[in-house]
């Protein structure tokens, strides 16, 4: 339309233009101008046509676009709507299904009618769900109420407990007063509850091994052995102070040592020797509390055992003391017998208590330069294996053990009875030996009435000397070589020299006494000086005499527990020397009477390929025969 208008206008313009310029100018110039104008007219028509065409194109394009979008938009819209609607049901669904509802069956059973409304809900799931939610709400309300109630009741009970506690604590001073008042009554009735209570109180501060020992020893004493008493001594306050900070473990110990060392070297430079000494002392420190066990024996003598716990080494040690009812006769040779050092040596085989039984201690010792525990044993006590056992401590030994190993109280209990018996036996035998030695030093061989039948009535050879000798002196003797070679002369044994004389004959007997006498019998080795030197090694008859006392010793035990073995052996030696000298063959080349006339009755004086003399005494006939 506009194009039409434009056309019209154009044509108007054209006409007008055409008219005007033609009239103005003349007819000549007017032709040239008419051609130009015609040309221009054509160009502008063409331009107008192009413009129209473009306009039309633009309109068409627009229309096409609109149509397209009109087609697409509804689908897009429906898609998004669909998406949205898809989300909604899910979120709406999970919200109420999060709640744990009771199952339907239960719901119908439990819920009251007004909530469950079965006639409605059975058919309508929506109503059902609603009803179930209702029921859930009901229940929750009820439980919340119950909770509040229980809280309240708890509070009240708590309060009443408090009140009662106060009441009890108020009783305590009253009770104490009563206890105090009852002390004299206790003493009168000899039921020392107070004392035992005190002990138990202190016992709480004992280190575990001493505690085990305390408990077990007490129990054993009460149950089986009235002559055993246990007491605790030492500083309780120190013990309390020790138990407050946590126990130093081995690593801490070394760490703190290292720290200390560093610190010390920074601050000042003390001598390294002093430092080491301090460390050693620290390592070997004893727990402030110790146990004292008193074993009373039948004859009134008491064995006091003092048990100590070395905290850093985790071992127990023991020191001993013997007190006798009557003063012991001083016998020089008996000096070693009751010494604390050797009294309990080898109570059990090869338990000599000179080294620590705890293998871990080796590493600790290396750190502080302790070579051997034996150096400290005198001061700290002996760490015998049986002491560790009584304290419930068990350390693995070098040899692999196949048997099951118990620890703690059961270990202690299993060893208690046998150890106590051995301890008593040991003290008794030592005291018996002490008495015997006193006698022997006076050249008297005490033979009890029960053992008289072992020997003939008349014994002419007599004991001239009884002395102790050192192990080195024993090993230096020629005629004891075979004993040392057989490993029967140990460091823990005691050595003695006895001399038996008759006329010009002198019999030397070197004796090895084991600490476990009389379980292990003393071993004699003989050497005779008479018309030359002979010993048990060169003379078969002297060897036979050694057999008489060493091998056939069971006859010489005497009444149980066999403490008279040693003196009986010496008596037998005297008898054998008598026989030896009296049955010696007469030397036909020498003139003169026999030095030792025959007095012993013998059936035969010589027998067998090595021509042995009759050393066996037969009672009551009183004659000598061969074995």
């Amino acid at each position: 339309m506009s194009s039409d208008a434009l056309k019209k206008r154009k044509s108007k313009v054209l006409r007008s233009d055409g008219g005007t310029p033609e009239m103005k100018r003349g007819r000549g110039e007017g032709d040239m101008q008419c051609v130009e104008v015609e040309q221009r007219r054509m160009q502008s028509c063409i331009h107008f046509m192009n413009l129209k065409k473009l306009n039309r194109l633009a309109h068409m394009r627009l229309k096409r676009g609109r149509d397209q979008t009109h087609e697409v938009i509804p689908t897009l819209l429906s898609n998004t709507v669909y998406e949205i609607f898809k989300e909604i049901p899910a979120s709406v669904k999970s919200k109420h299904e999060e709640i744990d509802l009771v199952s339907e069956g239960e719901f119908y059973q439990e819920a009251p009618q007004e909530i469950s409304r079965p006639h409605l809900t059975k058919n309508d799931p929506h109503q059902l769900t609603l009803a179930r939610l209702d029921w859930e709400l009901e229940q929750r309300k009820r439980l919340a109420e119950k909770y509040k109630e229980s809280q309240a009741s708890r509070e009240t009970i708590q309060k009443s407990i408090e009140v009662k506690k106060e009441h009890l604590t108020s009783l305590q001073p009253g009770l104490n007063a009563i206890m105090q008042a009852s002390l004299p009554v206790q003493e009168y009735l000899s039921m020392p509850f107070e004392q035992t209570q005190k002990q138990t109180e202190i016992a709480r501060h004992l280190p575990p091994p001493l505690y085990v020992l305390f408990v077990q020893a007490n129990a054993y004493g009460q149950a089986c052995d009235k002559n055993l008493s246990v007491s605790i001594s030492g500083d309780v306050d120190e013990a309390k102070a020790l138990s407050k900070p946590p126990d130093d473990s081995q690593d801490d110990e070394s760490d703190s040592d290292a720290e200390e060392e560093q610190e010390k070297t920074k601050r000042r430079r003390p001598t390294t020797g002093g430092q080491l000494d301090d460390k050693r002392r620290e390592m070997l420190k004893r727990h402030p509390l110790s146990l004292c066990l008193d074993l009373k024996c039948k004859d009134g003598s008491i064995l006091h055992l003092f048990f100590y716990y070395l905290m850093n080494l985790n071992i127990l040690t023991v020191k001993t003391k013997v007190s006798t009812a009557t003063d012991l006769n001083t016998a020089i040779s008996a000096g070693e017998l009751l010494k604390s050092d050797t009294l309990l040596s080898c109570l059990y085989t090869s338990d000599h208590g000179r080294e620590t039984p705890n293998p871990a201690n080796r590493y600790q010792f290396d750190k502080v330069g302790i070579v051997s525990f034996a150096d400290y044993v005198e001061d700290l006590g002996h760490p015998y294996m049986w002491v560790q056992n009584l304290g419930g401590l068990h350390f693995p030994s070098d040899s692999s053990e196949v048997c099951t190993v118990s620890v703690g109280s059961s270990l202690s209990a299993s060893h208690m009875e046998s150890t106590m018996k051995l301890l008593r036996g040991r003290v008794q035998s030592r005291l018996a030996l002490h008495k015997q030695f006193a006698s022997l030093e006076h050249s008297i061989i005490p033979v009890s009435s029960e053992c008289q039948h072992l020997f003939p009535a008349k014994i002419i050879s007599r004991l001239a000397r009884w002395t102790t000798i050192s192990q080195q002196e024993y090993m230096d003797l020629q005629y004891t070589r075979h004993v040392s070679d057989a490993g029967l002369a140990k460091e823990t044994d005691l050595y003695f020299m006895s001399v038996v004389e008759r006329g010009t004959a002198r019999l030397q007997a070197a004796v090895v006494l084991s600490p476990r006498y009389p379980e292990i019998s003393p071993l004699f080795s003989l050497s005779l000086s008479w018309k030359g030197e002979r010993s048990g090694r060169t003379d078969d008859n002297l060897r036979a005499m050694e057999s008489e006392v060493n091998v056939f010793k069971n006859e010489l035990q005497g009444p149980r527990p066999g403490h008279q073995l040693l003196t009986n052996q010496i008596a037998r030696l005297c008898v054998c020397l008598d026989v030896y000298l009296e049955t010696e063959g007469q030397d036909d080349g020498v003139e003169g009477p026999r030095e030792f006339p025959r007095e012993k009755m013998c059936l035969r004086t010589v027998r067998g390929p090595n021509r042995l003399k009759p050393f066996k005494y037969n009672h009551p006939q009183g004659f000598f025969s061969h074995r």
Partner: protein
Amino acid sequence: MGPIELLHMSVFSQSFSPCGRFLAAGNNYGEIAVFSLSAALSPDATAANQKPVLTFTAHEGPVFSLLSTDVHLLSAGNGEISAWSWNELSKKNVKPLWTKRPNYKSSLEIPEINSMIINPRDNSLVVGGGDNNIHILDLEHGVFKNVLQGHSDYIHCVSVRDREAEILSGGEDGAVRMWDSRSGQCVHCIEVYKYESCARPQFGKWISCLTTDSDWMLCGGGPSLSLWHLRSLSPTSVFPLSGCQRQAAFYQDKILAVGEGAFVSHCLLGGEVKAQIPCTPQSLNTLQLNTNSTEHRVLTVGGSSDHIDVFTNLSYRAFSLSF
């Protein structure tokens, strides 16, 4: 046997098995131990091989004499003789085949039996012991068929002179008696201590050691060990050994003797002491040569110790067996 018993043990007798592979030894506790020589002599022998394969108590008293026949081991205890089968012993079965007691007159003390020897001529066992008599046991019939009386003190050793059918015995009374085995009569009696060349009055007169080799006899004890020519009944050599000898043997051209002293003496027939080889026991009671086996040809000696020395080469001690 504890260590103390071992310390006081003495070995008195030894005997090799007929096959030569085992050695039986008797000690003063009445035990007999059987050692396996083949095991002990093998190149890979250990300490355990030097211990007995079997030890058992054979008699109440010491076992002073052991003797092997072709199949049996005969042992002498306190007045009794037991026979064991070597086969059974190798299987560790220790039941004796039989035990016999000679007739002893006195019953107060049972006399010991010091020496036994087989008389091959009539398969009899000649037994000498503490009752001063020699008893002859017929091994076939198992009965004591004769008693030779004559010694005035107990008999230490017996020997047999096969060619002349004679039995020789040496006793505590210092006499060496020669008996005719058939008649039982004493044909000669030599009192060695009366010969000045041999006599050692400082020791005594007893004869504890006696062995014969056809015309020759070795005897010693209190008197020195001496070699006698039996035809002429005179001593030809006297051996200057210090102690009293308890056993001697002829070996090739030498004489081996043991007794007091911790050594084996090697002597030449002429009377020289060629060597004295040291041993473990301080004095020796028994000496045996294993002639039954060529591969285990050893000399073993035992005495006042629980060790028995074994010599593979006579010049030195190879090792020791021990109870």
